[in-house]
């Protein structure tokens, strides 16, 4: 049975005829929408590598059935930069060496973007550590990740104040 599914992925409307309700958002992105930037680390919500934004909130895409998301807006790592201009979180990850192998990185970055939007951690390093604890990094680039999120938070805060002024 085919089920029509409409998503807005990275700002682009995607109409999908889904032939299988078992398809997770993660597998939909990777195997059917040619967006493999989102990574599979555990496929069970235990590592955070698959983190994307759904309607602006960070979630584990491995634990969501795509069919349940009809009408949703999805942002993946591929949709974060503005053309060649990196998102502040992306730039900060490079600057602070917040990754090594880069495999958990799309999830880390999407999680950081979601965390900053949630506004609960601010620029408190311990709150950032706690808020980023759903993203495992086996290379253990945690020091750089925390520094990157801290730096990006401050930069984005300064930018928004400048814009407001």
């Amino acid at each position, binding site marked *: 049975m085919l089920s029509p599914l409409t998503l807005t992925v990275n700002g682009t409307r995607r109409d999908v005829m889904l032939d299988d309700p078992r398809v997770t958002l993660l597998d939909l992105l*990777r195997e059917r929408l040619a967006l493999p*930037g989102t990574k599979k680390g555990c496929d069970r919500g235990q*590592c955070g590598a698959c983190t994307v934004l759904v309607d602006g909130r960070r979630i584990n895409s491995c634990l969501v059935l795509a069919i349940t998301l009809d009408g949703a807006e999805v942002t993946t*790592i591929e949709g974060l930069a503005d053309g060649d201009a990196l998102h502040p979180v992306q730039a900060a990850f490079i600057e602070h060496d917040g990754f090594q192998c*880069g495999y958990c990185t799309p999830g880390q970055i999407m999680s950081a973007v979601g965390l900053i939007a949630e506004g609960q951690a601010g620029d408190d390093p311990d709150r950032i550590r706690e808020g980023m604890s*759903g993203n495992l990094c086996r290379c253990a*680039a945690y020091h750089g990740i925390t520094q990157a999120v801290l730096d990006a938070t401050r930069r984005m805060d300064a930018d928004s104040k400048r814009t407001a002024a």
Partner: protein
Amino acid sequence: MSDTLVQPTRFGSNSGQPITRRDGIAKVTGAATFAADNHPDGVLHAVFVPATIARGRVTHLDIAAAKAHPGVVEVIHPGNCPKLAGDPESKNFMFAFRFDALQNSNVRYANQPVALVLAETIEAATAGAALLAPQYEAEPARVGLDGGVPYPIEIGAFGSPVQVVHGDIAAGHYAATKTVDVIYETPEQYHNAMETHAVVAHWDGDHLTLDMPNQAIVMSCAAYGFYFGIPAENVLIRSPYLGGGFGSKAFVNGPQVLAILAARMVGRPVKMMLRRDQMFGPTGHRGATRQRLRIGIDDAGSLTVLDHEAMATTSTFDDFIEGAANASHGIYAAPAIRSTHQGVRVDIGTPGPMRGPGEASGSAALECAMDEMAEQVGLDPLEFRLRNYAETEPGTGKPYSSKALRECYAQGAARFGWAGRPLAARQMRDDNGLLVGWGMGTALFPSPMFAAKARAVLRADGTGLVETAAADMGQGAWTVLAQIAADSLGLPLDRLEFRAGSSDLPDGGVAGGSGHTATAGGALHTAGQDAIRRLTALAVADPASPLFGAGNAGVFARDGMLHVPGDEGRSEGYVDIIARAGGAAIIGTGSAGRSAEDGERHAMYSHGAVFAEVKIDPDLYQMRVTRLVGAFAAGRIINPRLTESQLMGGMIWGISFALHEEARFDKRTGRIMNGDFAGYHIPVNADVTGLEVITVHEDDPHVNALGIKGVGEIGITGTVGAIGNAIWHATGSRVRRFPIRIEDLLALA
């Protein structure tokens, strides 16, 4: 090799710079293509069925049920699986491990593949695999250090000796006025790179293309060629990015071979990505160890003997014995040192090298036992280590190629604030009433060189191209090797094209053993030198060149030009030299390795000192490492930013070893009951705070031409012991089994 390091005059300004990763943009935008991100037309998805017994045989598979599932294309099982051309039981090349690829129905460990399902979608392949519902004839499983009778091994890991004895062990024991005789245990640990083992296999006749994460790209081509009966040159491995490796992606394993077999069987490309639970079996792990350490000292606190016996688990069908006792060589000045190893055969997948193989487990036990000795005689742990500082390699008497360990101790202790540490345990509390403890450990890791080749090309437009089949599993090869290569060609980085990560390039060797930068970097360095030498020969022989007649001895390359030293007017750009010579690109080749003679002349190690602070709840015993300072001397640092990351990563692996990682077996079935990231704990971000790395300056004129040692693995060594010692210092409880658990401290309180 010369005895003094001549700073190569053409060694440019790229090395030593903390530049950001050259693959950074690709990795933060999702553009970096990992193996399973490939999606060739017509690709089928493969899922294997992991055995749920640890020993016995498969008696039934419901093949009809699996095949009836919509989308399932083929079920591969021992009844229809093609025979491999090369016997997976043979071990006829270096680093060959036996593996299971449906060549029979036997099960020799849990999670071994017992069937493979191919389907049009992941969903169908996964469901089809579940439908096979294997039935077994199970035999009793044997797991754990007590799962078998220890046996004498014939050869240690990677050909290392089973036993090494320096000095008179009996005399050392006899001379001791104080002794420590303790047994430490470490559990089975699983690499668990964030990217599970994956492969996209594509056959074109008898040519095979593999997109797969691989730490030994060229070497693996020969292996796959052997197993599939094709020449090595017919195998192309593309491994531009590895989502971590840690030793587990250097070897051929059953699941990946099965996916390749399947692709040939059905004539379509096949993609397989292991599920996380499938990583706990067929892809290697760190064997469990039981280590007995007997340490003797005299009245002056000097070691009289260091006697280290290790027993480690391996599979029933292959040998990889964690070389834990080797950690007691090369580190402390004992007149008598013995390391010996035994094995225990159990029903698990064969272990393999995992970040810091041997050293990590051995250092954990040694550094704790050293503190037990210091405690017994009331010596500060750092003072005790300084009293036994080895000026030359203990046992062999060889000089160290370089050793700035004293500076590591001093700088690390100063930064940590070690002075004033109370000698006795359970003396410190923080403002919240938590127990506080400080511990330290010495870090040591060998500085090997392997073999690698490289090619360097100077093109007519003045840009460079360098090639080597190096692998970047996160350590930073794309960046660090390019820095070395750019310097070797006298070019800024932005005028260098760097190719790596593919088997059609010159063999870059193995990314492992903390030797990849030195080895592949060495090959790139000599390739660049060769290209510059050829270019110089053209210039000095060309009457139209300002360098004509200069002789090639002093000419150096910098920023795309050749210069005569001391005569700045005599210089010329590469573009002009090449143009006048007819415009053909200049090609240099290089290789690296270490001669046996050079290897014998010096003892070569990276050194370090790690200082840890832990806080522990005095009632509930939850533990947290709140500060961790590591000072390391590792020769020339090509990129301080990436080096710091590597060392920190290693130290966090030390936290993981000390407090978290452990595969828990159900001894009745031999199955691992925590084979996922919810149960197999590794540190999360909140576990990491107060981490500092100091790199101590060290010039090493002997280790290799570039003076490079390794930084990938040393961070674990020293750290595990430092944390164990800090936990003792906080609580007064000495736990001799890792990871140290809440219930262990509760039981000892």
